[in-house]
C-alpha cells in the first residue's frame, strides 16, 4: 500500500499516481502497515510500530532463510552478479512461488522507469535530479526491493560453508565440568610490543574512535566553501562599520556643510510651507520600531515644520507599532511648543488593521474606520481638530511614512485611486527603489528616502537643528563597503594563486 502525500488516500502498492487526487506517488514511497496502518519508509521490512511484516510473505522468507544453513544449501549460480537477480534466485528454490513479491518488484521497477522518463533530458532534468538524488536512499533501495533483502545475507555468507562445520562436534567439550571447575590457566603473557606497533595501535585507536564533525553530512550536499570570513576577519569588518558610524564624533561632521537638499525634499518643504493656516494634513505612520531609527528624524523634522506652520495634523497607522511611535513623536513636539495641544492642533486616531480593506473605508468615512481616537478615547466628532474632516478627501495633503512598500502600494491602489489627493511617501531607503515607478507615473507627488534626508529637510524648511547630521558617517560607510569589496577580491585572488601553485 502506498499512501498519497497530498490527500492521504491509500493506494495499491503498484500505483504510480494517486487514485483519488492524481498526485504523484513517486517521491513519497512509503508503505502503510497492513495491520496497524502506520507509514513506513519503503525499505522497511517490518513495521516500525507494531513489528508486523510490511510486505506479505516477507516474514516467511526470513524464517525460511534462517533455515538455510541447517538444511544442506545449494549455492546459487556463482556467475550471477546482479543483486536483484541473486536475490530472486536465492529466494526461488527455498520459498517457491511468490507472486506478491514479484508484483512489488515489477511495480517498483516501473516506478523507477517512470522516474527516468521524466528525467531523460539533455540538461540535468527537472524532477530528474531529485529522483536521482532522493532516489539514492529511498527509491534505489526500493528498486532492489527490501523484501528479499533479508535472505540475501545468509545466501552471501553460507555458500562457502557447504557442510555444517560443527557437525559431530557435540559433546567434545564437557561444558558442565569445565564450568564447575576452577580455571587452571594463567592469562597469556602479552607479546612484547615494539614502539612502532604501539604507536600504530594508538593511531588506529584515535582514528577509529574519533567523532567526525556532524555537519559533514550536510556538506556532502553543498560542498563546504572555504570559510570566507574568519572570526577575526568578521570582527574586524564589524569594527570598521562601528568606526564608520562614529566618524562624525571625531571629525565634527564637516561634510554636513556640503549637504544640499534634493529636489524632492525641497518640493515637499515648499508644499508644506504654502499650506494656509488651519489647513489639515493626514499623516500615516506605517512603520514599526525596527525602522524608526531611520524614519523618525525625518518625521520629526516634517512634524515640527507642520506645527510651526500651524497646520492641523491627524495621525494614524497601519502598523501596530506605529501608533506608539506617533505618540512618542508628538509628545516631543508638544513638549517643545506649549501651544501645540492634543485635540486642538493634532490628534492620533490609532491603528487601522487589515491594510487593504481598512484603508478603503477611509475614502468614505474616517469615523467608520476609527470609532474613537487613540489617546483620549473620544469619538472623532468630539475633537476640535477634526472639524470638517470626515473622509480622506477633506485633507489638503496626505503624508505616508513607511518601511514596507506594500503599505504605500495599498495607499496608492486602495485610497488614492478612489479619491484624488496628493500623496507624499517618505520611506526607508531600502524600499525607495521599489516605489520609484509610482513617482514617475505621478501617483506619488513626492518620494523621499529617509536615510539622511532629515538634515536636508531642515535646511529646505529653514528650521535647521543645531545637531550633527551624521553625513561624514555615510561617506565612511561607503568607504567601508568599498574596502570590503576590494578585500574579498584580493583574498580570492590570493587563494586562487595559492591553489594554482599547489596544482603545479
Amino acid at each position, binding site marked *: 500500500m502506498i499512501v498519497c502525500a497530498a490527500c492521504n488516500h491509500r493506494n495499491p502498492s503498484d500505483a504510480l499516481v494517486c487514485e483519488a487526487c492524481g498526485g*504523484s506517488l513517486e517521491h513519497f514511497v512509503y508503505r502503510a502497515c497492513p495491520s496497524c496502518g502506520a507509514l513506513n519508509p519503503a525499505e522497511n521490512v517490518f513495521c516500525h510500530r507494531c513489528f508486523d511484516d510490511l510486505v506479505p510473505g516477507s516474514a516467511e522468507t526470513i524464517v525460511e532463510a534462517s533455515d538455510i544453513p541447517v538444511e544442506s544449501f545449494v549455492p546459487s549460480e556463482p556467475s550471477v552478479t546482479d543483486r536483484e537477480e541473486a536475490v530472486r534466485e536465492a529466494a526461488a528454490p527455498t520459498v517457491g512461488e511468490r507472486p506478491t513479491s514479484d508484483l512489488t518488484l515489477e511495480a517498483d521497477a516501473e516506478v523507477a522507469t517512470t522516474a527516468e522518463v521524466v528525467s531523460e533530458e539533455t540538461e540535468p532534468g527537472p*524532477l530528474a535530479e531529485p529522483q536521482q538524488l532522493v532516489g539514492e536512499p529511498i527509491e534505489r533501495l526500493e528498486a532492489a526491493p527490501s523484501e528479499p533483502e533479508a535472505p540475501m545475507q545468509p545466501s552471501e555468507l553460507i555458500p562457502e560453508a557447504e557442510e555444517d562445520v560443527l557437525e559431530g562436534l557435540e559433546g567434545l567439550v564437557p561444558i558442565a565440568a569445565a564450568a564447575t571447575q576452577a580455571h587452571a590457566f594463567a592469562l597469556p603473557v602479552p607479546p612484547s610490543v615494539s614502539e612502532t606497533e604501539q604507536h600504530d595501535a594508538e593511531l588506529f585507536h584515535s582514528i577509529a574512535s574519533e567523532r567526525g564533525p556532524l555537519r559533514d553530512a550536510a556538506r556532502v550536499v553543498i560542498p563546504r566553501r572555504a570559510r570566507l570570513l574568519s572570526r577575526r576577519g568578521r570582527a574586524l569588518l564589524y569594527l570598521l562599520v562601528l568606526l564608520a558610524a562614529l566618524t562624525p564624533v571625531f571629525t565634527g561632521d564637516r561634510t554636513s556643510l556640503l549637504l544640499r537638499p534634493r529636489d524632492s525634499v525641497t518640493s515637499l518643504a515648499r508644499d508644506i510651507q504654502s499650506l494656509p493656516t488651519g489647513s489639515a494634513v493626514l499623516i500615516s505612520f506605517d512603520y514599526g520600531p525596527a525602522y524608526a531609527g531611520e524614519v523618525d528624524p525625518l518625521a520629526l523634522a516634517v512634524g515640527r515644520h507642520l506645527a510651526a506652520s500651524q497646520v492641523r495634523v491627524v495621525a494614524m497607522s497601519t502598523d501596530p507599532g506605529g501608533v506608539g511611535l506617533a505618540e512618542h513623536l508628538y509628545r516631543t513636539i508638544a513638549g517643545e511648543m506649549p501651544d501645540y495641544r492634543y485635540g486642538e492642533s493634532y490628534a492620533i486616531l490609532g491603528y487601522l488593521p487589515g491594510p487593504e480593506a481598512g484603508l478603503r473605508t477611509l475614502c468614505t468615512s474616517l469615523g467608520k474606520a476609527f470609532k474613537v481616537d487613540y489617546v483620549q478615547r473620544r469619538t472623532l466628532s468630539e475633537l476640535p481638530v477634526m472639524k470638517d474632516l470626515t473622509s480622506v478627501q477633506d485633507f489638503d495633503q496626505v503624508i505616508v511614512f513607511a518601511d514596507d512598500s506594500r503599505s504605500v502600494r495599498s495607499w496608492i491602489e486602495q485610497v488614492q485611486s478612489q479619491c484624488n489627493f496628493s500623496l507624499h511617501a517618505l520611506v526607508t531607503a531600502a524600499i525607495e527603489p521599489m516605489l520609484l515607478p509610482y513617482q514617475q507615473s505621478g501617483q506619488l507627488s513626492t518620494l523621499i528616502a529617509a536615510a539622511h534626508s532629515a538634515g536636508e529637510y531642515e535646511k529646505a524648511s529653514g528650521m535647521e537643528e543645531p545637531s550633527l547630521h551624521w553625513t561624514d558617517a555615510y561617506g565612511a560607510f561607503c568607504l567601508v563597503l568599498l574596502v570590503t569589496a576590494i578585500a574579498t577580491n584580493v583574498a580570492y585572488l590570493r587563494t586562487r594563486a595559492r591553489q594554482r601553485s599547489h596544482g603545479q
Partner: protein
Amino acid sequence: MQPLIDAIESLLSSSLNITALAVLSLFCLLFVVFTGRAKRGRRFPVRAIPAYKSIHQLVSRSLESGQPIHVGMGSGRVGTEAMSEALMGLTVFDYVARHAAAYDQAVLGTTADGTILSAAQGVLQRAREEAGFAERYAGNELRFYGPDPLVYAAGTAGAITRDQHLANILVGRFGHEGLWIGEAAQGQDMVQLGGAAAPGAIALMQATLDECVIGEEVFAAGAYLHRRSHLGSLATQDTMRILAILAIIASVVMASLGYLG
C-alpha cells in the same frame, strides 16, 4: 433578480474588470487543463533549480545522520495577500516533516505568524500520525516567535544555533530578517537555503545563503519537491508568461504606431 442585473451592469461598466475577468478565465481554463494532464502523469520537463535539488539531498542526509532540519516559514499571514508565500513555506515544511516522521526523527519549524503556526501544527500532527507515532507529536517542534519580523529573526537564530541543525531552510514571506537569520547562523557552519518573493528581501538573502530561490521559483516548491499535480500550475504559468510577453510586444508595437492612447 434586480441585484443580479445590477451586478451585471456594474460589471459591464468597468473596463478593467472585463480585462481582469478575461485574463482570469483564461488562467483558470489553462490551469484546469494542465493540472488534469499532470495528474494523469503526463510529463512536463522543467529546468533544474539547484536549491530544490539540495533540499532533496539534505532531507536524505538528515534521515541518515539523525540531525534535524530547520524550516523557517517566515511571517506571511494566511487570510491576507501574503498567503501564497506562506503556503510555500508550509509546503516545504510538509515535505521535510513527512520524511522526518516516517523515520521517526525530529524536525524544527518556526514561524512569525499564528495562522501559519496552526496550519503547520496540523501538517506535523498528520505526518506523525500517519507514520504511526502520533504520540511523538510534541508542541515544541513548531515554534512561534513574533509577530514582528526582527523578533522572529532573533528568536529563530537563537533556536537554530542553540541546538545542532543540519540545515536551515528559509522559505516563505521574508523581509530583511532573512539576512539577519542567515548571517547570525553563518558561524554555525550549517547549510543555508532559502527563498522569498519580494525583491528587497531576496537581494539580501541571496548574498548570505548558500543557495537561493528567487521570485516565482518560490511558488514552484511543491512541484519540485513532492506534488506532481503542481506541475500543472507551472505549465499554466509558462503559457501565461508567453501570452503576457506577446501582449506586451503587440501593445508596444501598437503604441509606437500611435494606435493606443
